[in-house]
């Protein structure tokens, strides 16, 4: 850049002071939520259209650098989990909607977020393990898929990283998906089952599930709903004291 003289330095100072007059406060979760609502079909990475979670087998043909980063994330996530992962990589052959993670948590008043709340934010994930692929008639059965994810929510209790282990039955244009999920942050964890449907050639995926709190969140339940395509999803949910409803 050009050499700076005294005037240029004063000009730079004045411009920075002027720029600092504007308020830069932002609700990042709200911004992310709004733009994702306005543009729900974000999915292009590296110039290529990504498909939904139901088409994971194809998505895992990612560039090598991405896979290396994903592998590193997976290693970090696994190493950070003190209690291990209780899930079977081979999911059941059909959706299994009953939460199995925790039975009747005892209410405790240790959460940092108070009581019940509707939460919003975003979720992004990365594929870690490809699993296996079996063709049964017109259905492709994907088993043992593993993902890591980062949740950016407007409530610290569910601002977390996580791991999901999923199975997918891929039909001609739709998918059914199910599996387990664990979210974790410094204060506790949420764990349970999720199910999903995907359609429109992979442009739409809609997940929901019931997660049960542990650690600081023991005694609380988190119903989570996230939807979108590509690697980034919109998310919302509710947190409340008590157990998930019985079917």
């Amino acid at each position: 850049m050009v050499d700076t003289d005294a005037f240029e330095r004063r000009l730079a100072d004045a411009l920075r002071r002027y720029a600092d007059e504007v308020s830069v406060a932002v609700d990042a979760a709200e911004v992310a939520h709004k733009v994702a609502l306005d543009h729900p079909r974000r999915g292009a990475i590296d110039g290529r259209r990504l498909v939904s979670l139901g088409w994971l087998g194809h998505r895992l043909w990612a560039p090598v650098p991405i896979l290396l980063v994903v592998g590193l994330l997976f290693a970090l996530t696994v190493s950070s989990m003190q209690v291990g992962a209780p899930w079977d990589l081979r999911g059941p052959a059909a959706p299994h909607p009953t939460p199995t993670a925790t039975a009747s948590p005892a209410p405790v008043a240790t959460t940092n977020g108070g009581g019940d709340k509707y939460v919003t934010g975003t979720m992004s994930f990365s594929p870690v393990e490809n699993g296996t692929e079996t063709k049964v008639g017109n259905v492709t059965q994907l088993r043992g898929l593993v993902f890591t994810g980062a949740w950016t929510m407007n409530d610290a209790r569910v601002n977390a990283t996580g791991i999901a282990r999923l199975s997918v039955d891929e039909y001609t244009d739709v998918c059914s998906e199910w599996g387990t999920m664990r979210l974790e942050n410094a204060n506790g964890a949420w764990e349970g089952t999720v199910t999903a449907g995907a359609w429109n050639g992979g442009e739409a995926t809609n997940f929901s599930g019931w997660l049960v709190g542990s650690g600081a969140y023991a005694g609380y339940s988190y119903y989570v709903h996230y939807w979108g395509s590509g690697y980034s999803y919109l998310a919302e949910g509710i947190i409340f004291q008590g157990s998930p409803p019985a079917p």
Partner: protein
Amino acid sequence: MAFARIVVAFHGDLIRVAYVIAGDEQVAEDAAQSAWSIAWRKLGSLRDADRLRPWLVSVAANEARQLVRGQHRRSVTEVKVGPVDGTAGDPGGEIDRLDLVNVLHRLKPEDRRLLALRYVTGLDSTEIGTILGMSPSGVRGHLSRLIERLRKELSDG
């Protein structure tokens, strides 16, 4: 990095640059919001993580410039008068805020964008050249002429 974390990290940069270009806080906020919408759709095409900040700032700067151009014909811009700091006319002291605002108002939005990218965001001539489609030497030359103009208009020459 999740999108909201990117917003947290860079929103300040975006809105400050937009404010220098637009001279209006609401327009700056609108420009930043538009920039985040564009970023949401196109972020995946960015291959180099080191380019994230310059790219985001450039998007916000362009949005601010376009918003200002759209508004230019419809009204006279209101110049917000700030506190008097007693240094007006002092060639060795701080540049008076009102003088600066008036000078900025007389500049083209493209010139305010250049000033914002260089002095508010701190990008170098190579980064600015990439954003504006100019050579680094072209950026330096344009900036040098702009500074000379400001030096005269701020009675510092």
